[in-house]
């Protein structure tokens, strides 16, 4: 079994094996965590926010009909299609592909990649949490906010 060193590698493999255009990992907060494939045509920041909103709304719909969640969302367009699946409670995977005939392959590769990525995505170790100096961060950020927001006021 191939060992993936990080989620990006798993996404790259997914893009290669499924022949999709783009694959992304998006946090529940609507932030793009990892991207693979062609993203030049796409505003991934906006897409991440919208997909997260859509998925959260769909979760509420699932609860209304007695399901905990719908684990897969599929949006079929004329030329491009989107497959969205839950990796865990906080991360979802988005696959954009063109040939709808390949939906079976996309689903199969998505399931394989999901399992790999779910194993990779572990909580941040304590050591990395300490990397950020919170007091220093606050002071610098407050100064930066003053500089940026005072500027357009002349």
């Amino acid at each position, binding site marked *: 079994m191939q060992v993936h060193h990080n989620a990006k590698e798993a996404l790259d493999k997914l893009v290669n094996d499924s022949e999709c255009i783009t694959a992304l990992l998006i946090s529940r907060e609507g932030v793009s965590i990892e991207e693979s494939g062609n993203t030049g045509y796409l505003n991934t920041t*906006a897409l991440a926010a919208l997909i997260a*909103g859509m998925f959260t709304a769909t979760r509420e719909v699932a609860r209304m009909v007695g399901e905990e969640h719908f684990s897969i969302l599929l949006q079929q367009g004329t030329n491009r299609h989107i497959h969205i699946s839950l990796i865990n409670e906080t991360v979802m995977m988005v696959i954009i592909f063109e040939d709808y005939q390949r939906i079976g392959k996309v689903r199969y590769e998505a399931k394989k990649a999901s399992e790999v990525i779910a194993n990779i995505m572990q909580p941040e170790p304590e050591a990395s949490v300490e990397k950020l100096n919170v007091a220093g961060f606050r002071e610098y950020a*407050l100064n930066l906010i003053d500089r940026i927001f005072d500027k357009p006021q002349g």
Partner: protein
Amino acid sequence: MPYINYDKQEIAFKIVYFGPGMSGKTTNLIKIHEILDPQKCSEMVVLDTEEERTLFFDFLPFDLGSICGFSVRFNMYTVPGQVQYEASRKLILDGADGVVFVADSHPSKREENLLSYQMMTENFVSHGFDPVTYPLVLQFNKRDLDQVMNISEMNASLNKGGHKTFEAVALKGQGVIETIKEVSKQIVTRFEI
């Protein structure tokens, strides 16, 4: 608690603009997008209906810059103001690091302001936000109308918590930057890991 990605060295704070329908929440974001350095604001996503009402949310990401090696961003959202979209508001408020309440200053909007404010505070409780310490700024918008409620009346009705307030004419960009600056500073001041 903001979103923190240690691998990519990114921090994203979430700011939500709350308030009754047509009070100027989307206009605030549009003006921020117009006024601030275009290199710092990415493309804005506006999901208005044909009647210029926000159906789900609007979204504007703003890059603050690099701090302590982390790329820091404020993601600004609006909620739909109409009463029937309570489910959407609840979802959008989830994970918010701070809120701007945009009130309409016209006297006919007194009840709508109050109802929206009450819905916001109920949402705060359900999300576990402490209404006293939670970053919240009130904006009294549309101060250029012929008839407006006086500020003390609006404070008495909407600001029992003594939060910071700003008068605004969002359509002209007045008070918009002051508002976002204040809520940003409150969020950063409260930031902890």
